[in-house]
Each structure stands twice: as structure tokens, then as C-alpha cells.
């Protein structure tokens, strides 16, 4: 306080208000942190100019370029042709496949991940809990080529698990399973989505108070009723928010699918990749940009839903 008064810029009344806010607004107290004149106030943003410039050049400019090219002919005139082309034929199929893949793998991982999170919250063994949490942190960060290779080595045509299963008289490849298909991709995607779900859901599950269930039970609820009227409603926003994160993650993934299927499953990122690599029909050079715009829209919708749901979910986590 003494420092503030010595500088003399704010009225004592104002600085006292600042002091009352305490740790919530430490910036108010300090002489270094406070812009003192109009010039200084304007210079407030000067320090982040390098960041803003960098961000603009390397992310905003490319993104805007994709969005604007999606509405342009090769010559630069306005057109809807790219968008309509992207919503037809193989491109439409690729969107359907992508949505199907992301929805199924996110849904499966979300449900199983919640079960693991509940199992983890139930255990009284602190060491086990720590190990599983850190293992989840590590596995949630796998993906890409190493993961694709690991699954080819275990569940591929000549994988070790496949061999073991055939030795036991049940070759999964004779029963319609293949790691190189959409189902196979779901199995692989769950490998990094499920641990992610565990990490995201654990705080929410921990937030479920025993007392709530005890209260419900005292009011005559059976276990099922307590879940239906207390547990599930409390967990639902967190669950759905996490589902959005998982969906986005699966939707944008490229490397895993590229390495595993060598481009044979036409999901949108693979489709865009092959357009970039030059497999373009004449007159459709900008269709890739329209597909890219489509991806941005899908991810943006999921991200918005995430933000909304997360806001609701935060209510119960204290």
C-alpha cells in the first residue's frame, strides 16, 4: 500500500478497493503492473505484438486462405462449386466415414473410460491409482506411426495376437475382422482416446460425493434410482464435454489412419492429404479447401459444445 500511495497516481480510495480485492486482482496493487497514463495504457498491448504477429502469420493466414479459397475458382472468382462438389459423391462419403469413425470411437472410449474412471475412484489403493493415472497420461499421448505399427504387430494379418487366436482355432480374419478397416481403426483410436477419457472424467467422478448417494438411499432410493436421479445427471455434462474432446481428437487424426490403412479408407483428412499430394481432377483444385472448411466447421461446432458443457460441468467439481 505504501508503495502505491507514494506513486500518487490513483486516488487512495481506488487503491483501497484494489487492496480489498486481494489476491484475485494482484495487478491493482503494483506500481509496475499499472498503466499510469494514456500513453502507457495504449502501450499495454505492445508486449504481445510479437506473439500476435507470429500467431497471425503461421496460423491465421493459412486458415483464412483455406476458407477464402473454398469459395474461389482457380482464377480467383467467387463460386459455390467447391462447396457443392465437396458435398457430393466420394467427398460426401468421406465426411460420412469420418463422422462415423469419430463418433463410434469417441462413444466407445467415453463409455469404457468412464467405467475405468469409476473403478479408479472406487479403489482405496493410492499407488494403483497413481500408476493408472500416469499410465493414462502416457498412453493418451501415443498415436501416430508407433501405435499403427504396434497394432499391425499384434492384430495385423500376421500379428502375434492373430497367430495366437488362430492357434486356438479362431482366426479373426476368417470372421470378418481386419485391423485395416474402419472397425480396426476404431480399435486403434480407442487406444489413445480411452486413457484421455479416464484423465478427463476422473475429477468429475471424484466429485461425486458419497453423501449424495447416502442421502438418496435414506430417502428410499435403490442403487439404480440413486444413479438415475443423482449420479448420471451430475456426470452428464462432464461426460458430454469429454465426448466432444474425444470426437475432435479422432476427427482430426491423420497419421494413424495413413500408416494403418495406407489411404484405403477415405476419411476426410486422408482425402485432403491425397488432394494435396496431387490426385486432383481438373477444375477441382480448390475442392480440398472446401473439405478443409468442412473440417473446421465440424471441429468448431464440437469445440463450442465443449465450452458450453464444460461450463456446466465445472459446477460440481470443487
Amino acid at each position, binding site marked *: 500500500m505504501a508503495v502505491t500511495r507514494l506513486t500518487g497516481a490513483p486516488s487512495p480510495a481506488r487503491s483501497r478497493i484494489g487492496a480489498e480485492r486481494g489476491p484475485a486482482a494482484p495487478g491493482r496493487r503494483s506500481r509496475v503492473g499499472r498503466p499510469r497514463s494514456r500513453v502507457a495504457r495504449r502501450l499495454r498491448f505492445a508486449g504481445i505484438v510479437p506473439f500476435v504477429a507470429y500467431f497471425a502469420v503461421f*496460423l491465421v493466414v493459412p486458415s483464412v486462405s483455406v476458407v477464402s479459397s473454398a469459395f474461389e475458382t482457380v482464377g480467383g472468382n467467387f463460386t459455390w462449386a467447391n462447396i457443392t462438389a465437396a458435398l457430393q459423391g466420394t467427398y460426401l462419403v468421406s465426411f460420412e466415414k469420418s463422422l462415423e469413425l469419430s463418433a463410434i470411437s469417441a462413444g466407445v472410449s467415453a463409455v469404457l473410460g468412464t467405467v475405468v474412471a469409476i473403478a479408479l475412484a472406487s479403489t482405496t489403493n493410492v499407488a494403483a491409482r*497413481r500408476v493408472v493415472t*500416469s499410465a493414462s497420461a502416457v498412453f493418451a499421448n501415443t498415436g*501416430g506411426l*508407433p501405435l499403427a*505399427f504396434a497394432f499391425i504387430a499384434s492384430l*495385423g494379418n500376421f500379428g502375434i*495376437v492373430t497367430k495366437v487366436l488362430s492357434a486356438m482355432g479362431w482366426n479373426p480374419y476368417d470372421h470378418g475382422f481386419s485391423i485395416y478397416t474402419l472397425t480396426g481403426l476404431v480399435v486403434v483410436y480407442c487406444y489413445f482416446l480411452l486413457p484421455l477419457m479416464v484423465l478427463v472424467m476422473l475429477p468429475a467422478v471424484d466429485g*461425486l460425493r458419497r453423501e449424495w448417494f447416502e442421502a438418496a438411499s435414506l430417502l428410499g432410493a435403490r442403487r439404480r434410482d440413486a444413479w438415475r436421479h443423482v449420479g448420471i445427471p451430475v456426470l452428464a455434462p462432464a461426460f458430454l464435454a469429454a465426448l466432444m474432446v474425444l470426437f475432435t481428437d479422432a476427427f482430426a487424426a491423420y497419421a494413424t489412419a495413413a500408416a494403418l490403412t*495406407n489411404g484405403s479408407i477415405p476419411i476426410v483428412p486422408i482425402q485432403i492429404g491425397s488432394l494435396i499430394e496431387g490426385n486432383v481432377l481438373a477444375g477441382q483444385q480448390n475442392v480440398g479447401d472446401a473439405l478443409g472448411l468442412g473440417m473446421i466447421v465440424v471441429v468448431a461446432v464440437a469445440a463450442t459444445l465443449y465450452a458450453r458443457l464444460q461450463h456446466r460441468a465445472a459446477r460440481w467439481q470443487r
Partner: protein
Amino acid sequence: MAALSAPRVATARAHPGAEFRLGAVARTGVLVVAALYFLVPLLASARYALEGAHGSYTLSSVTALFHDSVLLQSLVTSVEISLGAAAITLALLTPTSVWVNLRMPRWRRAMESITLLPLVVPVVVVVLGIYGAFPTGIVASPVLLALEYVVLAMPYSYRAIDGGVQALDLHTLVDASRSLGAGWAQVFRRVLVPNLRSSLLSAAFITVAYSLGEFAMANLLSFTTFPTELFQIGTEQVGEATAVSVFALVLTFGVLLALSLFGGRGRRRAVRTGLPAGQADGVVAELAAEVDAVLGHADPGRPGIVHDGPTMR
């Protein structure tokens, strides 16, 4: 905790309706199945990597890699790119975060949201945009990869740095140093950087890990980096590629552990005191906590944060 568990079980039996947790059999079952799903592919790829003729074990796929000059060269390129990206990340984001916390604290949340934006634009789309917007000369240089990885890893790296900066009593530190006559350069070098060491290390680690593993952008921009070379090998010899990827995984875990041993001392102390006495002594648990801290998952309860680490998908 252990003492508490016995009466807890008794309560559960007395009021079966009150118990919302899974039973012992169910939760063991869940954890065992999960462990199988996660460990079998790793073991399978290790076995695959070491597979010799007629079921024997051999290191030949692994040693073959050390004689593959293209692969080694690609590894050098990848290391250069990732170190470059980490250096730019620290140089760009540390002052930004300090400035935001010091001069424009109301913008803190906004900055957090802005730095999450790279997650909204899929990497493939950024590549499309690069081809559309950048001159060909720039697109041909691998420096571009380092520059882009800074942005792509930013959701994680900014969070790591900003978390550290917010935990400091920034105003007191800066006021004190400035009133003792330090210039801004000195404040950074002598006061802030030493205080932020573990955050800066984990931001650097996250960026390096991202850059070493990133495949999509490198491949689509036609650069030969470690992952794209791995992909090339994988199209012909899955065994060797698997060997490399196992090697890469082991290397990553090694770096992770080394980093936590040197970088996470402050945090380790916090973790130690944070656990109930008598249960923090497991070495595994401690290492696990270290990995946690480095990956930034130590506090998954913070609302509004995407808990995904750097991905290489």
C-alpha cells in the same frame, strides 16, 4: 486411509443402496482387461522388432537401422527442427505470458482461449493453407516446420509456461528486482527464468516431443523427417519400422524420466507432501507422479482446460 477403509466397507454393507462404487471383483476385472488392451500391443511390437528366423530372437532389425544413413540423417533433421521449435517457443511465449500477467491480467483467460485455437484447425487444413498462402521458397525450407510446430504445440506449451508464471508472485519479484536496479534483461535472466525453470523445461519438452513425432505436416509438405522416413520403411518392412518405433518410444520415455529427475525437484517435494504419510514411499508411485508432472497432467481438475497432451496423430 487404510485404517478408514474397513469401517467404510462395513457402512456399505449396512446400506447397500448407498454404495455407488464398483465392487472389488468388478473393478479388478475392469483394470485387468484395460491393462491387457494397453500392454499387449507394446509387447507385441517389441517381440516383432526382435523376431528372428523360426521364432528366435535377434537384434538384427535394430542394428540394421544404425546403418541406414537416410534414417540417421532424418533423425538429425528432426532433432534440429525440434530444438529450433523449442527455442522459439521459449523466446516467444515466456515474455508474452509474463507481459500478459503483469500488464493485462484481464486478458489472461482470453489468451488461454487464443492459444487453444490451433486445436480447432486440423493440421491437414493448416497444410492446405500453407500451400495456398505462402510463397514457394518458404514452403521448400524445413525451417518452416520448426516455425509451424511452435504454433501447433502452443496449446500445451503456453499452458505449461503460463501455469508457472501465474504461480509466481510476479509483481513482488519484478518490483523487488527493479527497485534494486535490475534492467528487464536481468530480471528475466536472474529472477524469472530460474523461478520458472520447471515450467520452461516442460514447455520445451512438450514442444520437442511434438516436433519429433509430428507426421502429418512433414509428410504433406514433403520433408524427410524421422517420422516420414519411418513411414517409408514401414511400407516395405514393417518389422524394421516397428523396431524403430519401439526404439523411439523407449527413447521418449527415457527423456521423460531424465527430464523429471533434473527438472521436477520442486514438484516432487510438493507431490511428496501431498500424499498421506506411509503411502508415498512406493518408487513406482513417485516415478508416476514425475511423469504426471512433466506431461502436465498433475492437476487434471483445472476446469476449462483440454487435458490432451501433445499428439502425434
